[in-house]
């Protein structure tokens, strides 16, 4: 399936890499959160349930096993920590 990795809050001109089972599937520089929607980018990568998704930004890394939901959310909190979890459902504006 196609997994949407939502790069959310806290990104500022960052270089971001998304790997699936250790293979680089998405890479971009200049990733910056648009706070009018709380999203910087949506990285769409091929990944099946059970695959291990890894996001690297700055010197931070976060990993998570893909479930049935085709969306994942990654945020950098105000203290600089990287968090990956389920993407919230609902409208964004």
């Amino acid at each position, binding site marked *: 399936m196609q997994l949407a990795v939502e790069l959310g809050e806290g990104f500022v001109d960052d270089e971001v890499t998304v790997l699936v089972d250790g293979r680089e599937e998405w890479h971009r520089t200049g990733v910056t959160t648009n*706070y009018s929607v709380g999203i910087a980018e949506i990285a769409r990568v091929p990944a099946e349930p059970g695959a291990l998704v890894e996001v690297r930004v700055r010197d931070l890394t976060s990993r998570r096993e893909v479930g049935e939901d085709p969306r994942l959310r990654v945020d950098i909190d105000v203290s600089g920590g990287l968090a990956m979890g389920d993407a919230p459902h609902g*409208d964004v504006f």
Partner: protein
Amino acid sequence: MTSIEPNAAIPGSASADLEMRSAGVDAQSALGTQTGREGDPSGPALATAADTDRSPSDLTTEDFPRQPDGTAQPEGFAPAAPPVTPIPFRVASGRYRSQAVGFQLELRVDVDGRRPLHKLSGDYFRLTGATVSYFGSWTVDAVTVTTTPTHVKIVGTARTTWSTTFTVATVTVPRTRVFQPAAPATLRWSTPSGAIGATYVCAWEAGAFRTVELEQDCESAVTPFASYNTGSLPSGGPARDLGIGTAYAEAGLQVVDTGGTSTISTPSNHVWNNASLHHAMEAHFSRRQERPQFKVWLLHAMRHEFTTATSTLLGIMFDQQGLHRQGCATFYERIAGDSPINQRHQLHTNVHELGHCFNLYHSFHKNRVEPPMPNRPGSLSWMNYPRMYDPGNGSPAGEGPFWAAFPFQFDDLELAHLRHGFRNNVIMGGNPFGTGAASDAGEEFAELLSDTSGLRLRIGQAADDRPLLGTPVVLEIDLTVERSQEVNTREQLHPKYGFVQVAVSRPRGDVVVHEPPVRHCATPDLVACASGERLPISAYIGYDATVGHLFEDPGTYRVRAVYASPNGSLVLSNTATIRVGAPRSAQEDAAAELLLNDRTGMAITLHGTDSPYLVQGTSALQTILAEHGDHPAAVYAQVVLGMNAARSFTTVEPDGSVHVREPDLGRADDLLQNAIRASRGDGGLDDLTVYQAGAYLAEAHARAGDTDGAHQLRSEIRQLAQSKGAPESVVHSLDE
């Protein structure tokens, strides 16, 4: 640039008695009779108000506070009012403006009318020569109001974007009846100890605190939102018809739809992204300019790429390129149609996205604003998400409770921002999205509102648009003469002469007006230029006399310059963005350490030196050349060391003896020719620095008696300049 400030009084000038002036008749009869401000806008004599008082027949609904049902009526004027009821007074709140002489003040009084915030605020505009620019803003957060039968007096202490001791504002507004012309408001500044500053008399301009032009376009197949009756579904406020304009009118802002909505044809199932939205804005927003202005573009579209299987993007403020916040879009794929729920969504989304253009963050993102403030998840505001609504204390949260209680309005803090925020924090194209705090950046990036100088100043980074940390930042400053006139010579456009000043907004949040470490005091050397002539020059601006290295952090810098022309006009440049990249390896980190040393910065400024005081800087440049040859700064090290080698250096020893180191032409040739060769392609030095280095080397050869070598060098550089299409002023400077 701020030696004159608008709140101060002229020393020795008498200050007129405010109470006398503030009486309505007296103040009005004084209009047009005051003199003495022509020479100094900050003086105590009255600034005469523009004669824009309107007759009663000119009154519009803007003059009247909104009624609960959304209609506008004169205060106290219910249709059934008995005829014996005294004619009510006008509200004092609204926008006033002083005459455009020297400094012009836009004054906002907010003490009565709809949702009064008990604040004052204002923006100053400076008129210099043939140019008008924004000077600064001030806000009084809390006021004391005294109302008498004849006038309303408002007093409070102001925060300002510039430095002044005259911070106590006293505003007096004569009370007039609703069918009389609005009286002018008089503002007098004083210090906390009572010293009197400037006085401004400001004619009434509008009931709205700010006016914004809205241009709307529509994607084919989308029916744009018009209005929604808030009584259609349960809500927390009175039922009334709300559109975008009326929603903002309730907030005290006038949104003027400029009309001319055009349809943007797209293929079926078209999906927008932020880049295509920005492109569409550039193509279709007819009033757009790359400068701050209260003008905004709204696109009604169908679908954005951020929509996913379980989340729909309903709207976005997409404009984060260049100057931010000039455009937004609403997406109708899930909220199209005229059902009350969808109409309510459309109203909410449209007002909400425009709120972002005014630099408002979500209620749950306030902690991401610069500087941060607490989130307000319990806010019943246009800027909250219904599903994120959480009033706390165990009270019902989420969509249902939000809609049941939502009165269709901004919260008080947002209202204060919209009405009274410093201009650059609010205006579209002002501060970047999210930078909304009181800052002193405004005056340094003051936008010209009017420029008939016949001159255009462009700046840009001369070489690599994303320099690695430590790489010298060289600015290209390019003056174009659009109407024949005398201007300073090309050489004198270098900031070291002081005719051009450069301001840098840094990622750490401060703004630095660049002070070149070496100043050249020179009388203006003017040259007559024909229409169309260009005078470009490159200037190293990386090292500053006050703060040292200007570009010492990775991140985004905004740079702007202003040229003080011989006729007194202040010609403002575009804003250039310079993104400094972080070192990506230990090698690059080590190079940055060497280059960001203060002595290195000074050595680069001086184009090299033998001074023992700067030996650490010279040594750093030699290390860059020897051990970091691939670093982008290596070519600059070659130029600096080469120019130094090309000339003699005189050292006065402690015993008073003088030692002269003679030019080393061989070394100069090696270094400068290598730098020039390395810059013939895309990398290396910018063209102007290449020409400068070549001309410098030729001059050294000529001084050494090598006239043939000098001639050949000049000829080569001249040909290079011509082949690259350099302006005539540059080619001419390379003549022998």
